[in-house]
């Protein structure tokens, strides 16, 4: 029995080591998972992108802004001028929180009167919104105590007027569903294309097709177009389930969302095509596809706020198309914003789709001979 067992185990190890792609996944995957999960699953949200609209522009207001930054939770990225611009910054996704400080702020605090500050909070990511709200309230209370201790009346504290935008009840389902739509689409599109092509390679029908007068472009378009159709159907089903079953409100333009979905899908199908050119069987294709999907799950902002990630992961995150597509999904569905706010995301998705499709088409042509 010992020799049979030894022979079997020996054979398994030889197979494992000889199949280079599997070996790479065996070695790299656990490390990648540990690093990604370890850093990305950091539920403490800090460095929330924040803008101010300071109409008071005096020592008092500057002191207040400084105290915001000192908490470590807010990263003040600039003074946008007025309340309208502050709202736009949040619509565009440049900031998650805006503090609008009225012109009489300085005078009021100096005179010991109640000083109003308006806070706009992006509610589309409830965990970020809750942290922002809590921190702002704590800060305002602390300022009040500070002022009281300095001999002023408690009434001269800061009167915080928070407004949670888009998702006022801060329900996590409104945050999760648009993200899930993106993730499901990406997974489907990548796997479907990979399998569709690798299956033909595996069975030998691919070689047969190459001998026919079919052109590489026809072969590629003919194989991918049906899956674009299927993926679009999936967008529709996912949106319908999200809206009618989970009750996620849809505020924006469906046409815009579908148009940008097409860009995103082209990129995902391109990834699938690329994977199919470097794999020879479906198992390898599956493994490689998961390899591309995992960073999307963890780094795109699907589950964990990008703000909470270390710089390197944020940089990687900014290369992942799903990151931008999630902003598009949440932007159109929850915020109801249009292309005027989402054009940078649209641009990236277009550039990515173009680049990945060009690359995969070139590789695909080469793989034909």
């Amino acid at each position: 029995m010992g020799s049979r067992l030894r022979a079997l185990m020996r054979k398994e190890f030889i197979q494992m080591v000889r199949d280079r792609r599997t070996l790479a996944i065996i070695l790299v995957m656990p490390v990648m998972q540990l690093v990604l999960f370890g850093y990305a699953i950091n539920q403490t949200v800090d460095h929330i992108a924040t803008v101010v609209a300071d109409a008071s522009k005096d020592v008092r207001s500057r002191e207040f802004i400084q105290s915001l930054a000192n908490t470590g939770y807010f990263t003040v990225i600039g003074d946008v001028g007025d309340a309208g611009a502050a709202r736009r910054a949040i619509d565009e996704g440049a900031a998650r929180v805006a503090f609008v400080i009225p012109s009489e702020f300085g005078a009021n605090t100096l005179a010991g009167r109640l000083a109003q500050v308006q806070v706009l909070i992006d509610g589309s990511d409830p965990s970020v919104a809750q942290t922002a709200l809590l921190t702002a309230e704590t800060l305002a209370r602390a300022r009040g105590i500070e002022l009281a201790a300095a001999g002023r009346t408690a009434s001269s504290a800061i009167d915080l007027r928070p407004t949670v935008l888009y998702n006022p009840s801060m329900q996590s389902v409104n945050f999760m569903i648009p993200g899930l739509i993106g993730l499901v689409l990406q997974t489907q599109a990548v796997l479907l294309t990979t399998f569709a092509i690798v299956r033909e390679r595996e069975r030998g029908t691919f070689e047969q097709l190459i001998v026919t007068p079919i052109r590489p472009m026809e072969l590629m378009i003919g194989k991918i177009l049906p899956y674009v159709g299927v993926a679009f159907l999936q967008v529709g089903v996912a949106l319908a389930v999200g809206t009618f079953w989970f009750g996620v409100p849809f505020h924006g333009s469906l046409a815009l969302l579908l148009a940008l979905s097409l860009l995103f899908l082209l990129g995902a199908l391109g990834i699938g095509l690329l994977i199919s050119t470097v794999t020879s069987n479906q198992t390898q294709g599956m493994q490689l596809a998961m390899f591309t999907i995992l960073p999307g799950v963890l780094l795109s902002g699907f589950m964990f706020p990008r703000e909470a990630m270390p710089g390197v992961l944020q940089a990687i995150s900014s290369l992942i198309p799903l990151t931008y597509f999630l902003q598009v999904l949440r932007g159109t569905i929850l915020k109801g914003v249009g292309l005027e706010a989402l054009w940078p995301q649209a641009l990236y998705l277009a550039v990515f789709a173009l680049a990945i499709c060009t690359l995969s088409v070139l590789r695909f042509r080469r793989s034909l001979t």
Partner: protein
Amino acid sequence: MPAATVEVAELTRRFGDFTAVDALTFSVHRGEVFGFLGPNGSGKTTTIRMLCGILPPSAGVAAVLGHDVVREVDAIKRQIGYMSQRFALYDELTPRENLRFYGGVYGVSGSDLPSRVTGLLDRFDLQAAADRLCGSLPGGVRQRVAFAAAAIHQPEILFLDEPTAAVDPASRRAFWDMIYDTAAGGTTVLVTTHFMDEAEYCHRLALMSRGRLIACDSPAGIKHALGAEMMEVVCDQPARALDFLVDQPWIRSATLVGTRLHVLLRQEGTAERLRATLSAAGTPPHSVAPAAPSLEDAFVALTADAAS
């Protein structure tokens, strides 16, 4: 004189340092069943792939139906059919659907297609299986469907790469009837095989060994051209006798066929000399009699010549 449909000169293909096909020169006539015979790795498939225009040659030229295999691939692809050993069919499709698909790929027009598909299904006795999934069909039936798929556009030339390697002997025989049937209609058939008995069915044969063409003639011509006398020897311990005989300079080749020895003699060799040598080696023959060389004898002798 019929025009050549395939014309090959000095065709060579290298993969790195390895020369898979080494300076082949031959031509194939219209309506011929032309076979490539050789062991695995002798360059048969590589040659076919070059002729189909899917693998560029490293050197030499090849013209298929007058079109250059490098510059006029599109013209070639429209007029040839190709069938591989793997029977490239879609398992989730029925034979009828597979034929319709390949017909579409070859641009067989819409109204013409269904009748042509039905015609092929009838001709190759596939009606009973026509609407079952290909994945559930036995090898012999799949082979006929694959052949029909390769012939759907009525190509001028059919390339069959080891079409019978994966089916039982009965199906092999039936398959050759299909090949003859198709060739009789004017289609040229180029077929690779490593079965000697199948090679006998070809009009002409290219014997290949290690990428080189070692003979190109009809099966009878190849056997005749050996120009050597063959003796069939019955003796005790034939394996030991074989070891001894292959070293004799006056013996061209010796092979074990069952319990008998097939020995090809050179000019200076005679039956008497063979008898004497065997007796001296301690394996006196029970009989030494002249016999007609088989294709296998010719193949062994010619490969031995090419190697030396």
